[in-house]
Each structure stands twice: as C-alpha cells, then as structure tokens.
C-alpha cells in the first residue's frame, strides 16, 4: 500500500509540474465557468444582462414611454441608449444592430400612445417595426413574444384605469363613425362595443370611487386573462441563484476530464520514457502500479474540484445546497473518470495515440452530455442521447448538489450510473493493461 501511495503522490507531482495539464485541469474550467457564468447573468457588477434592444420612440408620448419602460423593466430586455445620449433614429438604431451594439431595434410608431392599447378592436392596431441581428435569429421569436406581452399589459393597464379609458373610447368611436371604408355592419358592431365599454368604464369608475371613499384606497379590478405567479423551482435557503452556480458543474466536469486525460497520457508516457521498466522492477506487482494510477487519477480529480470550488465559493460566491450530496457527486464523478482514464490508456501505445483517444473520446461525451451547451438548449433527441454520456450524469449530480437541491434519494441514480461506469472502466483497464504486460 505504501508503494501505491508513493507512486500516486509522484504522479500528482508530475501532473502539477505539467503546465499543459494544469491549464486543462484548472485554468480552462475556471475560464469556462467565468465565461458562461457571465453569459448566464453573473458579471458581478449588477448590470442587466438581457437582450440589448434599441427603442426608436417616434410617438414620444406618455403612453409610448410607459410601453418602453415596462419592457425595459424586464430582465430579458436591456434598453440601450445611443452613445451620445440622443434619442435613437431608425437609421442610428439599425447601425447599432449592424455593429453589434444592440441585438435588435424596435420602432414605436407615431400615434401609439393615443390608442390606449385598445385599438386592436378596430382592426387597425399600431405597427411596430422590429429589426434583429441576423446572427441572433433564435432570439427573434423571443423578442416578438416580449413585445406582445408588453402590448397586452397596456390593455390590462387601460382596463385597470377606467376613467382614463373613456376619452380613448370616445376618440375611437368618432374615428369609426368617420371611416367611410368600413362596412355598416362592422361599424354598428364596433359602436355598440365601444358604447358597452364606455358604460362599463363609467360603472367601474364609480365602483372605484366608492371603494376609495370607504377604504381610503383606490382598488383596481383585476382584469387579466390569467394571473401568473412565478414560483422558485430551486430550493434555496437564502438568496437567489448565482449564475456561476449554473456554470460551475460544467466547469468542474472539464477539470475532471483534463485530469483523466492527463493521467491516461502519463501512464503511456511511463513506457515511452522507460520509467515503466523501473516501476515494474520494484518490489510490487503490475496490479499495484495500475492501482496507483487509478488512485492518482481519483485524487487529481478531487484536488481539481476542491481548488475550483474554493475559487468558486470564496471569489464568485458559489454556494452548495448540500455538502453531503456534493461530496457524493464529486466522489462518484472522480471514480467514473478514473475508470474512463483506464480505458483510454489501453487504446494506444504512444502518448499521441492516447491523447487523441482521450480527448477525441471525451469531447463528444462533453458535447452530448451538456458539458459545452446546457442540456435544456438541446433538441429532445439529443437530450435522450445524452443519457449515454457520463458527462451528463456528472453534471446532473453536481447540479443536484449545488443548486437543484436534490435529496440523497434523487442523487442515487446519477451516482449509481457514474460508479458503474467507473467500476467497469477500471476493471477493463486493469485486465487489458495487466495482460499486455504479460
């Protein structure tokens, strides 16, 4: 056992001295976490991180400004202003999109504020022009949805303030009566609707005034097709989720991948350098040497995770929901990639061959397993495919421990998968490498 520990200690020292290895084990995962953490909304400077949109307000009324403000209040939209502080024109907003300063521009037309959000009944609603960066077409539909939501919010607002709605209704009614192109039947229908709405607005306003006199506060009718309550799906004991908590499980897996690849290469390196012969001549078996390789890989994974988490916790504010679950996830992930390391070490007889197999094998695992792109952004068939990747189970278990708030029972499945892969890989590697040594 002493020799196994001595050999494992030596391997860890060699790994630490290998600048390329340290980059993949520590620096790259850290860069990964910082980069994606910032994208997911970290940044650490309190700045908004929504879609940057330039609003061209051609109407410039209270109504249009309220519409833009209501959209800007959303996390999903970051209202950008022109560099010189002047209002956007259509041309300057288009240039901002083309130069990448804004993801999209939105033109609020003249007369937008006059309709009070109820112009849809006339069949002639205001037309909002939207221009989206061609490279961000995926966000186009998302922005359309946000604009539509904002418009309905205006309608809701109008119904919430019946007194302010009545002048708009009167104007709409006179516009309809003056419209010569409209059919008589349609005109009668709209006039009847506006009359009924005006009656409703009058009665609602009276009810509101009466309520104010009685309670001292003006209540507002809850006029909305649905009421949405956003529930927090993350079980947290304190505070909102930190974006780095989302990016760190993936970063940790990259650290483990780097450690496993490094140790697989190092195992073959022993042979090319001739040190393998010296180790074989020592007073221990080949099994002991291979066991030491497994131990050093397991320890390297644990050390890499510990260092990453120390930085994550103390520098970036990453919190762990359950340390017991985290220890479980870390141990099982390290065991899994130790097994994979042993498999990859059997696949080549030169450093180049093993490096090719290790990185070439683990990259696709990371790609389909959510190590590069979060699983939620993948199509369903790829999410199904990801079940075959150990990376998916590793990320899943780490997320469960860090921010998904998994119970121990829920941790069992990913941990069992990871342990099974690790055990099979380790036994396979031991068998093949021992036989190869005769």
């Amino acid at each position, binding site marked *: 056992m*002493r020799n196994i520990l001595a050999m494992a200690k*030596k391997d860890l*020292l060699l790994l630490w*001295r290998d600048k390329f290895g340290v980059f993949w084990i520590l620096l790259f995962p850290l860069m990964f976490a910082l980069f994606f953490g910032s994208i997911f909304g970290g940044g650490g400077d309190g700045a908004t991180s929504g879609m940057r949109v330039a609003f061209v307000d051609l109407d410039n009324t209270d109504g249009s400004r309220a519409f833009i403000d209501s959209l800007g209040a959303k996390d999903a939209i970051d209202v950008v202003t022109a560099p010189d502080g002047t209002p956007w024109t259509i041309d300057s907003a288009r240039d901002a999109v083309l130069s990448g300063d804004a993801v999209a521009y939105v033109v609020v037309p003249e007369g937008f504020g006059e309709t009070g959000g109820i112009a849809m009944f006339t069949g002639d609603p205001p037309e909002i022009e939207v221009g989206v960066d061609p490279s961000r077409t995926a966000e186009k539909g998302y922005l359309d949805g946000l604009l539509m939501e904002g418009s309905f919010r205006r309608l809701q607002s109008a119904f919430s303030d019946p007194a302010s709605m009545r002048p708009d209704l009167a104007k709409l009614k006179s516009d309809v009566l003056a419209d010569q192109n409209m059919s008589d039947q349609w005109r009668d229908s709209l006039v009847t609707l506006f009359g009924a709405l005006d009656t409703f607005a009058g009665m609602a306003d009276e009810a509101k005034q009466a309520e104010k006199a009685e309670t001292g506060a003006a209540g507002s009718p809850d006029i909305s097709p649905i009421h949405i309550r956003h529930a927090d799906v993350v079980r947290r004991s304190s505070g909102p989720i930190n974006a780095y908590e989302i990016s760190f499980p993936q970063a940790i897996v990259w650290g483990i991948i780097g450690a496993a690849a490094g140790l697989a290469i190092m195992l073959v390196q022993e042979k090319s350098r001739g*040190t393998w012969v010296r180790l074989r*001549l*020592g007073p*221990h078996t080949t099994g002991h040497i291979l066991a030491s390789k497994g131990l050093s890989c397991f320890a390297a994974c644990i050390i890499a995770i510990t260092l990453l988490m120390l930085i994550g916790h103390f520098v970036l504010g990453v919190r762990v929901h359950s340390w017991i679950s985290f220890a479980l996830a870390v141990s099982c992930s390290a065991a899994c990639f130790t097994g994979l390391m042993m498999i990859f070490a059997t696949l080549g007889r030169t450093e180049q061959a093993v490096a090719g197999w290790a990185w070439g094998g683990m990259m696709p695992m990371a790609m389909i397993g959510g190590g590069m792109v979060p699983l939620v952004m993948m199509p369903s068939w790829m999410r199904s495919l990801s079940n075959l990747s150990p990376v998916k189970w590793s990320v899943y278990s780490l997320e469960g421990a860090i921010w998904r708030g998994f119970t121990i029972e829920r941790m069992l499945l990913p941990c069992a998968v990871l342990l099974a892969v690790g055990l099979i890989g380790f036994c396979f590697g031991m068998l093949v490498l021992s036989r190869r040594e005769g």
Partner: protein
Amino acid sequence: MIRVNALVKNFGTLRAVDGVSFDINAGETFGLLGPNGAGKSTTINMVVGVLDPDAGSVEIEGASSPAQARRSIGVAPQSVSLYPELTALENLRFFASLYGYRGKTLAERVEWALDFAGVANRAGDRVGIYSGGMKRRLNLAAALVHEPRILLLDEPTVGVDPQSRNHIFACIEKLRADGLTIIYTTHYMEEAQRLCDRVAIIDHGRVLDLDTVPALIARHGGKAVVEVVLERPPITPVGGKLDGTTLRIETDDPVAEINALYADRTAFTAIEIRRANLETVFLSLTGRRLRDD
C-alpha cells in the same frame, strides 16, 4: 548466482532470442557483446522479469522467478529512465522509497547516489535540463540507490560524451571492486574488453561463444600482425608477405619478430603491431564487423 537456461523469445515471426544460456558467478562482471538488434536487451528484460520468455528459465540467487529476486536487482535501462519534470533529489527519493527506505536511511542513500552520479551540487534542478552525460550518470545512480547485489547495465554509454563515459567507467570499476555482480550489454568491444571478466558474444539471438576476453581472442582472434614499412625493398627474401615496401608478418611473438628485423639491420620508416581483439573475434565468428549496422 544467475542461471539462464535456453531462453527463447519471439515477436511475431521474428525470433529475437533463440536458446540463450549462461551462468554468472557472484561478483563477476559479465558482458553481453553484440551489434544492435542482436537480442541483448530482450535477454536482459527476460532475466529481470520484465518480459516473459516463450521458453527457458531464469534463476537468480536460487529463486526460480525474477519477481522473487527484485529487491536484489538494479537496472539501468538503455534509455534514460527518469522523470524529467522532477529534480534529481525527487527522482532518487521516489525510487528509493519504493524499496522501503524511509527517514534517515533514505536520506543517506539518496546522498550517496547523488555523490555517485556527481550531481550533488545540482540535486535541486529538474532532470530535464541536465546534460546527456549527467542524465546517464543519474540513470545509473537510480539503479543503485536501493543497494542491489546485481546490477544490469543496458548500453550505459550510448550517446555519452567522453568525459561522462570515463566517469561511468570509473564508477563501474569501483562497483566491480566492491564485489557487485554486473551484467553489461554493449556493442562497443573496447568497453567489454576493459570492464568484463567474461563476455558472451551474441548475434541473431544466439550466444556464439562465451569466455574470458583473452580466451576468446586466443580461440578466434588468430595471430598478431607486425606491419613494417621498409625504406627500400629487401634484396634477400624475408619472412612474411611483402607488398611493395610494406611487410606483413603474422606471428605469436611480435616482439621476437621486431628483434629479428633489428638484428638483420633492416632499415624501416614505420612499424606497427596489431594484436587480435574482440572485434577480430566477432569478425571471425560472424563474418561481419560489430558496427556494420
């Protein structure tokens, strides 16, 4: 001490070692001399148990398996088998620790090995930045750090500068004087001739002959040659072969031949005595030179 009996090793269709047998006595320096690819390293690897023979057996200090005698064997492989990212001190500490050395004993052994290799003043430097000669010396020291009784040296002077080569020779001669049993493989006949008590000449996986160097020369080297460049062609017939003014005399006693030339007042401008050596022996046994390859 070491008994090698009819070792055979095949790599695919190539028979690398074909029935090699020899015995090595305690305290003896035994040479395996042959060209590259002759089967020396394969034989060594089977002797120490790194390779399993297809046939034959190896007995070391009475143990029927090399694995049982590993503590008493030290090997300096042909390639420098050290960790270049570690310092000389770290390398030696690691290898010594594998043999159970701890604490003060470990420190003493490492200190001895550093002195032996002549790198004590650079013990804290990474081996990767050492010169080729320093690496070779440290490679040898790493084989000795656990105080083995048997030392296997596989081409220890390949790619070494003359100064380091002399240092290695001096080290080996000291170890020899200390009574260590040494197996030395080389394709440099002058090394085998200088260092080895007995030499096995090996080619194409077979031992062609095995004996002390003088005995091998006596058996296969033929007579010494005295080559004389005469001032003028002789008038009277002389012994030996005459080619223009160059006279070649094959003899068992070259000094007597030279005395005879003086006695005859033969005028000459140059004289050279060429004695048989292991190169001659190898040429005689195989029909080719050691370094034909």
